[in-house]
């Protein structure tokens, strides 16, 4: 019970207002949506729209001024310049490699946390998978910068085998990105494996299937949508990243770096380059949607 007693007149107004709102759901909806939609649809989508329109503008190469004349030059340049093509392919390749590595590493971990570990331990193990997600992104990349530095942990561990660490470069970038997004792959696979009915596995065994056959014919088809769901994160987060590659990538350039390096001098070109990861991610989502994975996100 509230203790303060509002004046009778004030209470009447509040009551009338509440009644009006209750009777008019459209008005209620308008009040609910106005502020958020002004923010997201006008401010955010508006900025995005202007950015993508500006991809069709050009820059005066002497003054660096944006020339607002419609042209498809930027996109033409994008697909004909070998450097751009190379970097785009490399970025997509890195995103795919990270996704595959994540899936390969995540599977045994998720299988263990969901079905092999003692049931009492499982929630704790899930927390153990989740914890690194709260640790700072930059700190995790920095950790790999330390590991891969000259004379660092990687070199020290590989020294007895007469090897040295990969140093900074493309492999280091793939490794670090895999590390960053691994939990996003483990969690959906864990959930899928946890929900896998034991009766199906028993039925498979009763019908004479060995563990390997059960895995291929029962477990894998049922877990695949979750792998796809996880891959949405690993793929799109890797594709847009340009910080990690600056820290551990040496001289490696990915699409994000190209966007970044064009912002100051040629914003229209940067915008055109920026449409590439967006388009690739949208295509990837459309492909994934066919597996039904997006419903489980």
């Amino acid at each position, binding site marked *: 019970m509230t203790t303060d007693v509002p004046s009778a007149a004030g209470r009447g107004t509040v009551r009338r207002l509440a009644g009006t709102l209750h009777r008019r759901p459209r008005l209620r909806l308008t009040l609910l949506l106005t502020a958020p939609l002004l923010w*997201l649809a006008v*401010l955010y989508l508006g900025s995005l729209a202007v950015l993508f329109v500006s991809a069709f503008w050009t820059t005066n190469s002497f003054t660096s001024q944006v020339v607002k004349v419609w042209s498809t030059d930027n996109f033409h340049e994008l697909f004909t310049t070998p450097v751009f093509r190379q970097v785009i392919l490399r970025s997509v390749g890195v995103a795919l490699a990270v996704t595959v590595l994540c899936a390969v590493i995540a599977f045994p971990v998720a299988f263990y946390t969901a079905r092999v570990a003692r049931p009492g331990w499982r929630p704790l193990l899930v927390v153990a998978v989740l914890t690194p997600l709260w640790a700072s992104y930059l700190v995790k990349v*920095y950790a790999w910068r*330390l590991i891969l530095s000259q004379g660092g942990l990687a070199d020290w561990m590989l020294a007895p085998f007469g090897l040295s660490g990969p140093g900074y470069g493309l492999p280091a970038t793939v490794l670090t990105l895999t590390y960053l997004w691994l939990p996003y792959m483990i969690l959906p696979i864990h959930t899928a494996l946890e929900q896998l009915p034991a009766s199906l596995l028993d039925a498979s065994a009763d019908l004479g299937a060995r563990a390997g056959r059960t895995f291929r014919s029962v477990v894998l088809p049922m877990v695949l949508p979750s792998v796809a769901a996880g891959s949405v994160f690993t793929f799109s987060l890797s594709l847009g990243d340009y910080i990690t590659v600056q*820290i551990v990538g040496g001289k490696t350039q990915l699409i994000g770096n190209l966007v970044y390096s064009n912002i100051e001098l040629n914003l229209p070109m940067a915008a055109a380059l920026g449409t590439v990861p967006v388009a690739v991610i949208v295509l990837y989502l459309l492909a994934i949607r066919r597996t039904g994975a997006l419903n489980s996100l």
Partner: protein
Amino acid sequence: MHLSRTARIALRIGAGLGFTMIYVPLLLVLVNSLNPDRSASWPPPGLTAHWWSVAAHNSGARQALWVSVKAGLGATAIALALGTLIAFAVARHRFFGRGTVSFIVVLPIALPGIVTGIALNSAFGTVLAPLGVGLGLFTVIVGHATFCIVVVFNNVVARLRRTARSYEEAAMDLGATSFRAFADVTFPLVRSALLAGGLLAFALSFDEIVVTTFTAGPGVETLPVWIFGNMTRPQQAPVVNVVAAVLVLLSVVPIYLAQRLSADTAASSRV
């Protein structure tokens, strides 16, 4: 599934390696903050707490931490307000374009940060600059709030979908106005979802670097931006090491709070 002994052992080893890979880098960051040497060569020549006291007095890092906290609180407040409004609209109303609204909410976090960053940067440049408002903490908060809305929305909408409307209706049948029903019935039901969403939003904002780079004015440096700027300077390496270690240790706080929250959620769902 009846796994053979070998398969079980193989899975244990695989999982063990996986967890090792997850935790060794974080442990290394902690150990390295005690490294007396400026290089990161392994093993460290000794251990010292000297750099911790140096870092505690580093004005750059302290200032950046303060900016990060302010940006996080501002963005979280806006995200809580807007995310909750959208969640109520989507969960409690049917209207044309409802699916589109949920899609627009996710977009800022689904698109690469650099795209959101330059879009907001050029929008601020064209809209705010003529008004005499430059980039600064305010624009950072606006940028962060944009991608934080989704986590609040997700938490609240999930909660609203799981709670029956009959509670509110019962309150109103008993004579409560819709405001009163909201304050006494609906709000307590979604409170822990708001806390969880707020926690996630703050963590997201506190950790963000890409959008920040494009929305921060000169002199506005959040902690991630400070770390990124000082990471490659050998002179600053020991202080960066300590700041990194502090951030690793701090990541336990939200885990603890999330556990408390889910216990709270379990308790309130028993009502």
